[in-house]
């Protein structure tokens, strides 16, 4: 069988479309679903409000293997009112879990900094749970650049 140039182009365009939309979409859905599941487990099914929590992450990470992130939550951090925990999730990693920070009034401030791995450009999500059960969320898109020089 002879394949004309036009046919070949059509075939490869189809293949490209499949790669771009088929598995890509499914994968994205699976990640979002897994992230949602982790989120809901943490909040006990509650939808988090915005505000009070700030997630700091670079807009562009030079290397996805070591991305500095920090979270801070507004709170008096007294026995009556404090932040219990903050969970950090990454939507586009093989597994969304990154870390769960646990605070007590002895923490003084509900803030933490660490370094994380990102498999590619994706949303990083931080959700804070207060001792009264209320939950707050912040989200940052981090672009992970693919270097020209692996070295």
């Amino acid at each position, binding site marked *: 069988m002879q394949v004309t140039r036009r046919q070949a182009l059509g075939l490869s365009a189809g293949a490209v479309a499949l790669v771009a939309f088929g598995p890509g979409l499914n994968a994205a859905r699976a990640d979002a679903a897994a992230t949602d599941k982790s989120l809901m487990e943490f909040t006990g099914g509650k939808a988090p409000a915005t505000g009070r929590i700030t997630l700091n992450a670079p807009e562009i990470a030079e290397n996805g*293997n070591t991305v500095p992130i920090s979270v801070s939550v507004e709170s008096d951090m007294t026995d009556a009112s404090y932040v219990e925990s903050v969970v950090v999730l990454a939507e586009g990693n093989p597994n969304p879990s990154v870390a769960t920070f646990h605070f007590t009034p002895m923490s003084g401030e509900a803030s933490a900094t660490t370094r994380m791995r990102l498999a590619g450009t994706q949303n990083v999500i931080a959700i804070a749970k207060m001792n009264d059960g209320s939950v707050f969320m912040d989200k940052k898109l981090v672009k992970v650049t693919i270097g*020209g020089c*692996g070295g």
Partner: protein
Amino acid sequence: MSRKLILAAATAAVVSVGGALVASADPVDEELVIDGEIPMVIRTKAPEGHPFDEVLSGWLFRTPETRSLEEDTFTNPGMLYVERGEEIWNTVEGEAGKSCASCHGDAAETMAGVAAAYPKWDADAERPINVELQIDKCRENNMKAEPYKFDAPEQRALTTFLKHQSLGKPVQVDLSQGDMQSWWDQGKEVYYTRTGQLNLSCASCHEENNGKYIRADHLSQGNVNGFPTYRLKQGNMVLLHSRFRGCIRDTRAEFPAPFSDELMALEVYTTWRGTGLSVETPAVRQ
């Protein structure tokens, strides 16, 4: 016009045509002071015969997050390897029952500034040697211990520790010793020779295109004053000859053996290109 003003003008011009990429490809205009105490020379007048007027540390080409990791010896993960290197320094090994410290004592005193002058001429070997080979020479001759396998974790840690004893000292290779000048010549030839399927030389990227992006990577001048370097990609210390091999592999060429004549000549030449820059070991790079 000051550098800051020029940068501001350039930024304004670029933003006005709607693309910030070109401006952000410039190295930053920042100072590097380790722990707020040890000022680093990260730009300096190039030595005579250098193609540039000014040589720049790779630190200036990195993002704010990567730069800040190096500014604080506590947050710098490379310091873990300095500490490991110190343990090795004090550990007895080999048939002679000696450690490095048995002869050299406190490295903070005896090794201060020493590694900034490597590679240097070795009359016994009749070739230049770097810190890694100097360590092996000591191990074999004085400790009666095996030389390290290339890239062994102990080699990385001890080399990092020794280079760190020169933190902030200017890089200065002595080309007047032995045949250093001819090794420099040979290294220069390696630097400018295009190789591999991509037909690239060191100069193609680090001389002709530094400051620009290669895909998403910001090309530096390729100075080696921070080696061994903590690379975020590996999450580990990377020896200079590993980095050479990585660069050469990326040109899709066969890469020479570590410490081969070719790479040792390249080390002599590239180290000279960064003359006057501070030793930054352990530098932090992407």
